Structure formats: structure tokens, C-alpha cells
């Protein structure tokens, strides 16, 4: 347990002050750090240049300057990110990579140019029709641009070998995280919702190889722990992200544990490996058509509902909690479809609104409480 607690404490230090973690990395390695906006970014290319990719998923802050770019009905991740940008919080990054999977991120990327001209922005637009070969070729060309930018920042050429090595590091990270999710589900008495989130989130501010080896240690420690049957209810989270922590604490307080997730901020990032191959950029481009079940990836079959049903059954979960990022179009369009499917499958669903600037968790408290009572009565 001691080792587990030590790892949790170390990751907590990282997550509580990403800025310090970034500065420490820069000092130790003499290399730069580059920000990655949600949801999908070719982090392997950044990593291959020896640069630290840093997740930029907003955070809790009072919004004031962001209103010069966004009206009130923009998603809170990007409102916060804009506020941070305007306050110079990201000035220690050599650049930021801004993907454009939704209309808000498209706008954010354009607004950044005048909002934070001191930090270079590198746009990337993933294709939605990646099932055709031309989609893969196009994505490769977008990755080329990122690669060139990383080479400019690091001053070094990214070799094929380096890129393939980084892909190996990331595939190992993904595999480890999938193992962690499974191991955590066996030890819900230790891995509370907040701890689970913390351990996954730490990877946004750490070199992935380092994070992976710490997670491996943690997993083997977890597996050595005596089996304890979890007495509470098990839920699966779906949505963009489950923050702030006060929200996650409410689950624990109501005897609920997160047994699996389908969050963009968590499992969606590590459920698909990069396939084998020779050319690093092509391998990365070929990962994209393999990804599914995410509101930001084109899917006319809308497989997400069935995927959620499968996750619930595999994990013997009691219900699904939708962490609905307020004002997120892609998620809001998915919801009516999978709501029907979950209902037909007899799976309880809690709709929880997420706002990073949530002034108090009171409303969520009541909803989580009544959901817990509902599950108890079933």
C-alpha cells in the first residue's frame, strides 16, 4: 500500500501544478514543451522530437478576459483555456497544437492567433472520412506539418527510428493504461473515482515512458493486494471529461465507484493502438480509421450506444453516468441516440452536466444521490 500511496502522491504533485511539472521537465532535459488541445493530437511526433506534449484541457478558473472572444455559451474547457492563454499561463510552451474536430475548436484555433500571438499555434485538422485511402494520405500530410514544426522547435530532424520508438512508447502506455483500468476495477476500495482520474490525468503532464513505468509498478502493487469485494454500486462514465474533483468525490460519498469509462479525457485516448508498419507517419495516420465510438469521429452507425452497453456488461456495472460537457454539440447530438439504446437494454443512465467553472457541486450532489438511491432500489 505504501508504494501505491507514494505513486499517487507523486502524480498528485504533478497534477496539482502542471506548470511546475513542465518547468521541471524543461530544466532536466533542456528540451521544450508543446501544448496539445483536446481531443486527439499526434503526441508521438512531439515525443519523437524530445519535446514534452502537455495536455491543455482547461481547468478551474474565474472567467473574465475569455469573454472578449467567446459568448457565454461556449464549452467551459475552451473558455478556461482562452482565459489561461490571455493571462499568459501558457507562455512557457514553445507552441500549441490545436486540432479542429468541432466548431468551437476551429474557432479557438483562429482566435488564438490574436489572443496569444506570443505562443506559436500549429493547427491540425483530422479527416472524418478516414476509411478511404485518400483520407489516410491527407492525414499523413497534416502530420508532416506537425513534424516539420517540431523539428523547427527542437532544432533536430525527427528520424524514422525516433518516431517508431515513440510510437512504441505510446503503444506501451496505451496497453498499460488499459491494464490499469482493469486492475483498478478489481480494487475499487483503493482506486476511488478521484484517484482513478488523477492517475490517468497525470499522463498529460509527464513524459509518457515515465508515467507508464510508474503505472506498471502501481498495477503490480494493486494486483498483490488482497481481493476485497466492492459493496457499492459500479458505474461507467461517458462524455468528454469528469471534472472537477469535487464531483468525483460525490460518487465516493454515495458509495459509487467508476468501474470503466468512455471519456474523451481518459479511455478514448488509449483504447486504440497504433498499428504496425514501417513509416511512422503512415502508421499514425492508419490508427485514425481504427478509432470509433467517440462523438468527434464520424460514425453514421452510431456505435457508441452498443459500445456502452458492452462496457457495462463486461464490467457488471450498475449504470452509466453521462458527464455532459455543457455546450458540447458533438456530445449533445450523441445523447438522444444512446439514451434510447441504454433504455432499451434496461441500463440506468444519469445525465450530469459538466461545467469546469461549476460554482458549487450542490446540484450534482442531489442528482448523484438520487441516482444512487435509484440503483439501490433496483
Amino acid at each position: 500500500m505504501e508504494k501505491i500511496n507514494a505513486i499517487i502522491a507523486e502524480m498528485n504533485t504533478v497534477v496539482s501544478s502542471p506548470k511546475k511539472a513542465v518547468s521541471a521537465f524543461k530544466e532536466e532535459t533542456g528540451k521544450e514543451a508543446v501544448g496539445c488541445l483536446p481531443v486527439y493530437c499526434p503526441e508521438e511526433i512531439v515525443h519523437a522530437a524530445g519535446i514534452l506534449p502537455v495536455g491543455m484541457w482547461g481547468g478551474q478558473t474565474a472567467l473574465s478576459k475569455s469573454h472578449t472572444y467567446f459568448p457565454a455559451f461556449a464549452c467551459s474547457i475552451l473558455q478556461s483555456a482562452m482565459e489561461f492563454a490571455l493571462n499568459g499561463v501558457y507562455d512557457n510552451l514553445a507552441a500549441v497544437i490545436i486540432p479542429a474536430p468541432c466548431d468551437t475548436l476551429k474557432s479557438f484555433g483562429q482566435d488564438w492567433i490574436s489572443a496569444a500571438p506570443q505562443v506559436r499555434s500549429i493547427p491540425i485538422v483530422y479527416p472524418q472520412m478516414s476509411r478511404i485511402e485518400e483520407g489516410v494520405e491527407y492525414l499523413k500530410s497534416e502530420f508532416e506539418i506537425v513534424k516539420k514544426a517540431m523539428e523547427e522547435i527542437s532544432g533536430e530532424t525527427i528520424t524514422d527510428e525516433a518516431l517508431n520508438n515513440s510510437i512504441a512508447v505510446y503503444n506501451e502506455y496505451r496497453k498499460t493504461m488499459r491494464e490499469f483500468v482493469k486492475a483498478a476495477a478489481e480494487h475499487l476500495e483503493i482506486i476511488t473515482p478521484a484517484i482513478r482520474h488523477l492517475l490517468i490525468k497525470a499522463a498529460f503532464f509527464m513524459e509518457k515512458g515515465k508515467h507508464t513505468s510508474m503505472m506498471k509498478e502501481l498495477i503490480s502493487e494493486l494486483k498483490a493486494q488482497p481481493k476485497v469485494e466492492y459493496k457499492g454500486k459500479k458505474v461507467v462514465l461517458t462524455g468528454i471529461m469528469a471534472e472537477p474533483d469535487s464531483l468525483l468525490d460525490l460518487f465516493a460519498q454515495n458509495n459509487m465507484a467508476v468501474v470503466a469509462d468512455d471519456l474523451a479525457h481518459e479511455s478514448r485516448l488509449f483504447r486504440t493502438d497504433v498499428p504496425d508498419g514501417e513509416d511512422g507517419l503512415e502508421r499514425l495516420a492508419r490508427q485514425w480509421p481504427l478509432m470509433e465510438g467517440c462523438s468527434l469521429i464520424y460514425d453514421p452507425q452510431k456505435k457508441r450506444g452498443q459500445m456502452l452497453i458492452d462496457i457495462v456488461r463486461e464490467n457488471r456495472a450498475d449504470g452509466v453516468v453521462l458527464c455532459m460537457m455543457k455546450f458540447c454539440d458533438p456530445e449533445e447530438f450523441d445523447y438522444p441516440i444512446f439514451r434510447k439504446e441504454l433504455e432499451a437494454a434496461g441500463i440506468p443512465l444519469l445525465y450530469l452536466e459538466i461545467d469546469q467553472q461549476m460554482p458549487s457541486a450542490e446540484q450534482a450532489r442531489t442528482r448523484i444521490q438520487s441516482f444512487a438511491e435509484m440503483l439501490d432500489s433496483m
Partner: protein
Amino acid sequence: MSEKLTSKQLLGQLTAKHYNDAIVGKQNGELVAWSTSIAPQEFCETMGIHVIYPENHAAAIGAKGGAIPILEHSEANGYSIDLCSYARINLGYMELQDCCFENVPLPDLIICCNNICNTLIKWYENIAKELNIPMIMIDVPYNTEYEVTQPRVNYIKGQFKEAIRQLEEICGRPFDYDRFDEIMKNSSRAAKSWKRAMDYAAYVPSPLNGFNIFNYMALIVCMRGKEESIQLFDLIAEELEELARNGESQFPGGEQYRIMWEGIACWPYLGHNFKTLKKYGVNMVGSTYPGAWTLLYEAGDLNGMARAYAGVMNNTNLARQVELRTSIIKDFKCDGAIYHMNRSCKLMDFMQYQLQREVADRTGVPYVVFDGDQTDPRNFAQAQFETRVQALVEMMERNKINKKSM
């Protein structure tokens, strides 16, 4: 011999015909597609598929005051009130199949091009899933660069190929490339003819009442691959030419001020918005609508066609968007601008503040912003609109006096 039709009569006839053809066609077992408003219609037109444009349909429902019950139906189905109201109307209509406007038939297939927003992808995915029908997706990646890059063009062309393959499968017959060539020619001619007519707004005073663009556009949306649309646009141009020659205008009461309107119309309040502007002699001569459907390319040139569809205003980077508004204000000699902070359109809204600042910097013309929605009448306040227009008029008036005294 019957008398020659006016453009208004012809527009009415063609719109009715457009919807009726689809309704009758469906009854006769012909294919009906639903399409996003600036999707490459050339493919379906080539295959003789009837195409209905849900955005246009939703706008008409909104304008006719029938939005609320359909919006409420969608909301009861779980669609957030924060989502695009066109989508909410269309997804609600899909179930109800009853509205105050034409009861259009359900589609056998859908075609989606995200050159105006990515919201469309999600909306159309849901149609495909709910109706279990094939979806043709033309994904045009957002242009972060000023120009449409060659890798983007290649990717889009690849999707044209895929769309043709899907259509051949759906229709059970080969794609008619000769007919395609002809449709491409028609579409380009329609685009040019549309632009020529709308450009009459550049005259001072303008013979065109800008709010009529909101009526005319039904045809450039719904029938831009058809010969008849060219007739209509040419007729409009002819009428405007005559008005201009006689120093007359469609705009009643005399044009005192000329403005650019940014964004989609507020369909449920079109009459109110127009009356408010007319009261002060404000004519909306500048709009991004004319340009949005001016899709120009040479027949047979798939590279050009890909560039045209990918280069649609909403899909361009902010620098280019600023340039577009700046030139509209200059070319159409606008004295001011009204920005619609449209609760339905995140893509237009979330760049709009910076767009306003940059356009004002470059043009020096005053502007106001009002909160509204394209078809959800609950998101608009008449009083706010009136106050903002009044403020704009005061600023424009001051500018006029200053100019005279200089």
C-alpha cells in the same frame, strides 16, 4: 398569351414545384435525398434524385411561425436547447412529418458536406441512424491556411469518387458522366447568374431590397443545378436593371443608410427585423449570402469543384473571413454593420468578436450586435434589436454629418 411572370411569381412557382416534385416523386417510388445546404448537389442531380434541403425547410417553418411545437418535440427526445435550431426542427420533423410548411418526404439517402459547420455531421449521423439509410459524407477539412491546400483537394476528390460509388450502388445504375458534365455547367452558370443579380445591391441607391435576398436564396440553395434557377436569377437581374435605370428600388421609402448584415437571418422575426430597419431607411445591401453560393469552377474540373466547395466562407480561416467582410463593406458601400450573435451557430459566433474588431479596424464603419437565433423564436428580443438598430443609426448619422462638415 399569359403575361410575363414577375420574379416574385416565378420564385413562388419554382419553390412550389421543387417541393411538389419531391413529394410526387417519392409517391412514384423515386429516390429522395436530404442534403446540407452547400453540399455538392451535382452528384444527386446527375442521378436524377430529388433533393430536399432541411436547412431551407427549417428556415421556412421558422419564418411561417411553426417552429415551437417541433422544437419542443425534439427537446423532449433529448436534444439540448443549446443545439442548432435547424437541426432541432429537422430531427423533430423527421418524427412528426407534419409542419406548417411543405410536408416533405423522408429521405432514402442523405448527403452531408461540413463546409458550413461540423454540427451538420452530427445532425446527419443521427438521421442516418434513425432512418437506417445510407449517408454520403463529403468532409472538407477546415482551411486553417488562407488557401485550400492541395492535400485537401486530393482528399476531397477521393470522396467525390466514393460518393459516386455509393450513388451507383444506391441507384443500381452507373453514374452518367456526360450528364454530370452538363450539371456542372448549369451549376456554374446558375452561380454566376445568382451573383450578377445580387451584385445590383452595390448600386447607390440599391435597386435591390436586401431582405429579398432571404427570399431569393431558397432557389440558389434548392435548385442551383437546374436550368430554371438561371431563368429566375436572370429575371431578377433584368428587373433590377430596369429599376436602377429608372432610379427606382424594391426598397420602400428611400434608402438612407446601407448596412452589412452578418450571419443567418432571424427567420421567425424577418418581418419585424425588416420593418425596424425600414423605419430608419436602412437597406441591407451587404451580406455574405450571395457569395456563399457563388461556387465557381469550370465544368469537368474536379480540382476546381473541390476547391469551390472547400472554400466556402464558413470553412475559411479568420484572416480570409475578415477580408471577405471588409470587401463587402467597401464594395457595397456600407455605412455600418449588424452582427447577429446567433445562438444556433457556434462556428459563426465564436470567431465573431475578433471578426468585428478586425473588420471595424479596417473599414472604420460602426457596428452593433444583437442576440438572436435563426429559427428558435425564444432566443430573440424585439426590444433589444430595436435599441441596437437605433444605436447604429445614430452612429451612422453622426458619421454622415461629420463627413459633410469635413
